[in-house]
């Protein structure tokens, strides 16, 4: 497959390799080295690293600045951008700012509602939604124009991604929604954390039935559980998350000190199984505040070493 941007992630996917991405959450302060330290640890085990954009609506160091730090250390960043906090002027402006530092990947999201975070009294923006942001980046890149119609002097060259949650309700519209994001111009998808493998496989089958797996690169999202408590929390408290009872029981069934190990095991087993699913083109390994475990997950899943592509 030919590539449209200088993105290393795009090249790896186009060459037919299973891609591996991970993500780092920026700190709640101005210590930029928190990000570079996390990235230093995992950089040889992944092809690109997402930097979250004030995830769960908790104010943090901005994604763009953190991505620039990664870029300067030679790591490929994926700029996450939510439409919750910026109108179309700010979104386009930040995209250009990112492009000026040669950031080549963007993940277009609407973002969690501000009620979850540290500023529930704040206004949200949602001038655009995630689908319209996908359209915006593609328009800026492919037409070389601002939404307002003026020409951009040196348009951004970004590989455009979005999230998909096969587990949110109603299930019947989850594949049509993927189709809608593809129609908007999305080029890669990172999914919500997968614990219910049967449901994910059904979603992928429905996507394949419409030929969608050939129109977009789908990276399956996985997150290891650190403890049984985390599994229960994810099951009960995180919106849009589907953690089957048997997974929670498996975590609770081992002694506390063995639970982290069990969590990694479940994660690796999931990757092994998902590798066989037609249409899965890679993995997005989200080890939340447990980045050091990305190494062994990638290694044990047979995804190491990463391909060398310039």
């Amino acid at each position: 497959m030919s590539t449209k941007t200088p993105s290393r992630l795009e090249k790896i996917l186009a060459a037919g390799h299973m891609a591996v991405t991970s993500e780092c959450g920026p700190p709640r302060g101005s210590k930029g080295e928190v990000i570079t330290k996390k990235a230093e640890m995992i950089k040889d085990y992944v092809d690109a690293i997402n930097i979250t954009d004030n995830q769960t609506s908790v104010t943090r160091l901005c994604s763009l600045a953190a991505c620039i730090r990664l870029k300067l250390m030679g790591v490929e960043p994926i700029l996450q951008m939510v439409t919750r906090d910026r109108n179309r002027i700010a979104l386009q402006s930040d995209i250009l700012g990112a492009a000026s530092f040669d950031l080549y990947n963007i993940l277009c999201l609407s973002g969690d509602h501000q009620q979850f975070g540290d500023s529930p009294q704040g206004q949200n923006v949602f001038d655009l939604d995630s689908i319209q942001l996908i359209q915006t980046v593609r328009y800026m890149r492919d037409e070389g124009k601002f939404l307002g119609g003026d020409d951009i002097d040196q348009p951004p060259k970004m590989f455009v991604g979005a999230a998909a949650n096969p587990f949110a309700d109603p299930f019947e519209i989850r594949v049509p929604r993927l189709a809608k994001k593809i129609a908007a111009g999305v080029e890669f998808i990172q999914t919500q954390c997968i614990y219910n493998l049967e449901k994910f496989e059904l979603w992928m089958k429905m996507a394949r039935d419409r030929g969608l797996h050939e129109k977009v690169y789908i990276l399956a999202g996985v997150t290891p559980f650190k403890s049984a408590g985390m599994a229960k929390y994810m099951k009960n408290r995180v919106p849009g998350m589907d953690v089957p009872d048997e997974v929670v029981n498996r975590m609770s069934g081992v002694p506390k000190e063995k639970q982290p190990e069990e969590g990694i095991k479940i994660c690796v087993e999931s990757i092994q199984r998902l590798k066989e699913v037609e249409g899965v083109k890679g993995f997005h390994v989200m080890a939340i505040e447990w980045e050091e475990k990305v190494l062994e997950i990638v290694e044990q899943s047979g995804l190491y070493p990463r391909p060398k592509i310039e």
Partner: protein
Amino acid sequence: MIVGQQKDFEEIKKMISSYNRILVLGCQTCVAVSFAGGMREVEILASMIRMDRKMAGQDIEIIEDATLRQCDFEFIDSVENLVDDCDVVLSLACGVGVQALAERYPDKVILPGLNTSFMGLTEKMGVWSERCAGCGNCILDKTGGLCPIARCSKGLLNGPCGGSMDGKCEISSDVDCVWQLIIDRLRALNQLEKLEEIFPIKDWDVSGHGGTRKIIREDLTA
């Protein structure tokens, strides 16, 4: 209709603390339906204020009335004598009524006794909910007659987001996901294919972000 909610009594007390001759003026239209600013609420609030002042050993004189529609100059002209006769007007109308009074009676202090909450309807006795955001460019033909701008917590035009679970919004299990309701209704109308149409970037200019809105009908002004 416009749904309102009476302000906290402590807040009202503070607002009127320096006045001793007050007109409490309700409105018999929308806010009377939401039991916030009709004649009955005027009477109850006036009694509370009297009682409070009496306990504090302070004098107060309260005139009680309600206009048919406080957002209409024609109706507020009829209370001119009452307005002239008081130090301050505590209005129990929506924000439009309060401003109409302020515009008509420029020398008089007009205070709001209500918070204007939203444009909505009575779901059942004692329960009101929002339905319209007044965005200036109605899209209900595309969304099965349910408004995502007013009723989706993120106002998403291409919803639902990934936080919709069991028909509820990610912000609370008490809040319906309007996109689930839209899907249910489109399915019932055999129009589910509408969900795959991309809703284009919206022009918010007419929704108030382009400045205060005004409509001029030349056929009527001539």
